[in-house]
């Protein structure tokens, strides 16, 4: 069964990730190229920037693939890592003890303080002069030369935090009280994000629920939350008139073809324009200023217009590949933090891709979510790849290859491992 031809899950994951990144580079370049309205090949500014971000994302993927993900869930994990880097073969003698207080222990856990930093950034975005407003939504924060989308960071911080909560169990989520406490960080991030980026907040909510479910909370506990959450969701939709209009526009885009329905109509026209065969790479017409957000939210419509059904299926199969890999990695991971981390990342990417494609195909009301790994996304792309790098690392450390731990960098820290039986 374990033939030498067997493709390791993590390599398949890397292949899917790189294929999607490549697809993104090509399509962003194609879309951005259309805007210039010129004939002949030319690197566009957006396309060039995308290549730089993708390069950074690949670096992030490999760096995180080499880091030991477990340090994220350990108190003082960062110092242990630092020690590893400074003394590759020695112990971590320089770590600063924060004492035995559980709160201190928690706060010294990287997964927690990454989350705290993310929350602070999300809060900072809301401050008028710090947050940068683009297209009427204040979602970005300027850090030196780069813009960071705080919600993007918050999203992944939540995944890490919940994987940690479910594995380290500072509270027991299997009990209702513990579950309620779990909702506190989620609520904090959600409330900070929801005003400017409802889509991401909803995505975080759904994804965290999935992590809770996979992490073993009692389902009837969760069931108790459904009615109030539904009420809250409806309230948010109804309170902001633009959201309600967007929802209504989805039902009948042609009611307001120049306003709320415009994005949707243009997206539908992209599918119509391309047909099953597509117009061919670079031949898309909708990108000539018709399809808005063609490098980000609606890039899937552009893929379909240029590459047809084949392009759509290829893209979706790659996401399915990522999910498949994440599941395999999750169930073979050595510890529950790794399991939940792999699951959370896979779930987040799968869900976001699903929602984005559903929006592009006008199957659900529009949300401003990019297509993960493909859209021109800047820092979000880098963070996503970093998270996938961690999943890669989970697979490495689980020693999925022939059941042998092969992580040499942190081998000294490992206890003897047991063979993980194939499911």
């Amino acid at each position, binding site marked *: 069964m374990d033939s030498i031809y067997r493709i390791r899950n993590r390599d398949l994951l890397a292949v899917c990730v790189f294929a999607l990144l490549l697809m993104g580079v090509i399509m962003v370049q194609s879309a951005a190229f*259309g805007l210039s*309205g010129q*004939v002949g090949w030319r690197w566009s500014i957006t396309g060039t920037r995308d290549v730089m971000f993708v390069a950074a994302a690949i670096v992030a993927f490999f760096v995180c693939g080499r880091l030991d993900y477990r340090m994220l869930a*350990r*108190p003082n994990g960062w110092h242990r890592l630092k020690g590893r880097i400074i003394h590759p073969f020695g112990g971590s003698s320089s770590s600063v003890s924060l004492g035995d207080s559980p709160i201190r*222990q928690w706060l010294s856990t990287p997964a927690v303080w990454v989350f705290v930093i993310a929350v602070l950034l999300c809060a900072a975005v809301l401050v008028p002069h710090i947050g940068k407003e683009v297209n009427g939504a204040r979602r970005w924060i300027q850090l030196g030369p780069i813009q960071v989308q705080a919600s993007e960071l918050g999203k992944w911080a939540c995944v890490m935090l919940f994987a940690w909560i*479910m*594995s*380290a*169990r500072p509270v027991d989520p*299997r009990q209702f009280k513990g579950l309620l406490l779990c909702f506190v960080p989620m609520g904090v991030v959600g409330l900070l994000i929801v005003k400017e980026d409802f889509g991401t907040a909803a995505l975080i909510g759904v994804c965290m629920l*999935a992590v809770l479910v*996979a*992490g*073993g909370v009692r389902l009837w506990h969760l069931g108790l939350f459904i009615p109030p959450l539904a009420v809250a969701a409806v309230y948010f939709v109804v309170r902001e008139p633009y959201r309600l209009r967007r929802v209504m526009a989805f039902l009948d885009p042609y009611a307001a073809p120049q306003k709320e329905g415009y994005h949707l109509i243009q997206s*539908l*026209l*992209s*599918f*119509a*324009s*391309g*047909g*099953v065969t597509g117009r061919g790479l670079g031949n898309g*017409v*909708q990108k*000539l*200023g*018709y399809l808005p957000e063609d490098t980000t939210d609606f890039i899937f419509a552009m893929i*379909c217009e240029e590459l*047809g*059904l084949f392009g*759509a*299926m290829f893209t*979706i199969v790659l*996401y*399915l590949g990522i*999910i*498949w890999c994440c*599941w395999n990695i*999750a169930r073979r*991971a*050595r*510890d*529950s*933090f790794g*399991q939940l981390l792999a*699951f959370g990342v*896979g*779930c987040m990417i*799968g*869900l976001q891709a*699903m929602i984005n*494609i*559903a929006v592009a*195909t006008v*199957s659900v009301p529009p949300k401003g979510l990019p297509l993960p790994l493909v859209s021109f996304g800047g820092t979000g792309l880098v963070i996503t790849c970093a998270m996938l790098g961690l999943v890669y690392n989970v697979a490495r450390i689980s020693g999925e290859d022939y059941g042998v731990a092969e992580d040499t960098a942190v081998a000294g820290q490992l*206890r003897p491992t047991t063979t*993980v039986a194939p*499911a």
Partner: protein
Amino acid sequence: MFTDTPAQSSSFSPLRAAVLFGCIAVGLLGLVARVAYLQTYGRQQQVLRADRQHHQGEVLPARRGSIFDANGALIAGSVQDCGVYVDPHFMHEQYQEQNRFNEMDKDIARLANLLEREPMALSKLISDESQQRFLRISEAVDERTAQAVKALKLPGVGLMPMNRRVYPMGSLAAHIIGGVQPDQIGLDGLEMKYDKLLAGKDGYQRILKDARRRGLGVSEDDYVEPQHGQHLVLTIDANMQLIAEQELAAACKKFRSDKGEVILLDPYTGEVLALADYPTFSPQAPSDSKPDVRRNNALVSPYEPGSAIKPFIVGPALTQQVTTASRVWPINAISWATPYGRRITDTHGYGPLTTWDVLVKSSNIGMSMLSEQMGNARLHPALVSFGFGKRSGIELPGEDPGLINPLARWGSHSTESVAQGYEMMVTPLQLARAFCVYANGGYLPPIRIIKGTVDPNGDIRCRNAAPDVSTLSRPVTPEAAMQIRRILADVPLRGTASGISHPIAGTKTYDVPTWYIWNIFGKTGTAHISEGKAGYSGTRFNSTFLGAAPYEKPRLVVAMTLHDPDRSIAHYGGTVSAPASARILGRCLAYLQVEPSPELEPPPAEVMAHLVNFDPKIYQKPANHPTGGEAQARLNVRH
């Protein structure tokens, strides 16, 4: 608690994870189906919309073909001009956006002044049509105006190339050409009949546009080259057409006739050399005239020809040897009762006349006796064989076949009625065509007005070949044709049209000096106008002259009809139509530089024997009569 949790004791539930991942996977696969739907069935409703959004269609107008006369002179042509259009919707939007709505009327007024339009009217038009995207406000402006309009830089106002029809010869041949509507569609005449040929086929291109409506290019599949229209070459000679029109108009004015037609044919080929109607109109602005005026009466309005029909009965009578030219008819009074008791009258009491003189004097009694002898059974096919009751096939729209009742509906009255040119309807064109039989020696030529077409590259596409004489119908034998021709040559000298060869009373000047140079043969006709149930008018006449010249080898056949000339001036065909026809013949023969005719031989002895007061001097041409250029100069003097 803060150490690694072994996998075995994990809280992670692979089953739940699998179910959740499965849901996402099912969702993604469902979206593949959704994409496939949108690209196939869901596409139908959107694909047209997408196409409209991406492409802007543009018609590439084909150039309309020109119309030339037989010598290549341009009668109708197209030039490209600049039209001005407005996008009222865009215009309103722009002024509203820039908050300059109050300046709009002022700007429109400036535009209106340039285009020489009423500012208020234009302003109202633009605001009335404010939802429209295209409004043509000027058909054709010159270069300077176009530049000025461009310099105004008004939003929503643009220039577009437009083809405009021009008629450099003005109203010449108006009834043949017809004219076009503002959208270049033929309205009448050849412009209508040959609209498809002249118009060609517009081309088309679809321009790929980006969202800012900038054109990005035209792909090969989206370009259809326009096929320019073909040119028409007519048999009309503009010079002769002008002569015909001038003389027709002069005659109509002189005799206060409100309607008249003249046709000039080449008797051998049946080519129409000139065809004129009075009153005329300007093809440049056909809508300024009434449809009634634009009607080409020469071929669409049949009438009862009167005596002009007589040679077409005598000819077959001679061919069928019903009678001879020298046979004497026992006319002894001004009126005669037919066998069934109908009373036939002549204008004068002639006494016994030969068949020859029955025709020269146009005796109704003589003709009635002759037709009585011929009988309906031979009369009917005789007339039909000259093409009456059938269309001549001229390439002009709306030709009327005229009317000859079927033989079964002819009664005993018909014999005399038809012999005098009633109970049948003919068009002037049919008369002229039938008269060609006597001019060319016996065959009925096909009538045509199109010499050929020339394709846009200047290559001759098709040419109407000259008719093959051997296949054409021959209503009379060549001998009978020659005989009739000789008889009719007496008509202008001592018959009903003798006015044209006599000096103006009390002077030595001649109204029509044509006969000095060329011998004319012809036949007059004066017919009462039918007033429906009220019978025939006693005071209103159609005056016809059928003629050809020169006698020896006829080059031209002319048929002129004036309807309802003022009776207080004149009403006989010989005094109304004949002089004008003779002038047309004279001027055209001079233009063609035809050899002058010798003097006519007197009639044969057996005919001469029955002539009363016959003076052979009438066949002598006056000494020192003008010829050549001098004759032409004298003919061109308008009276």
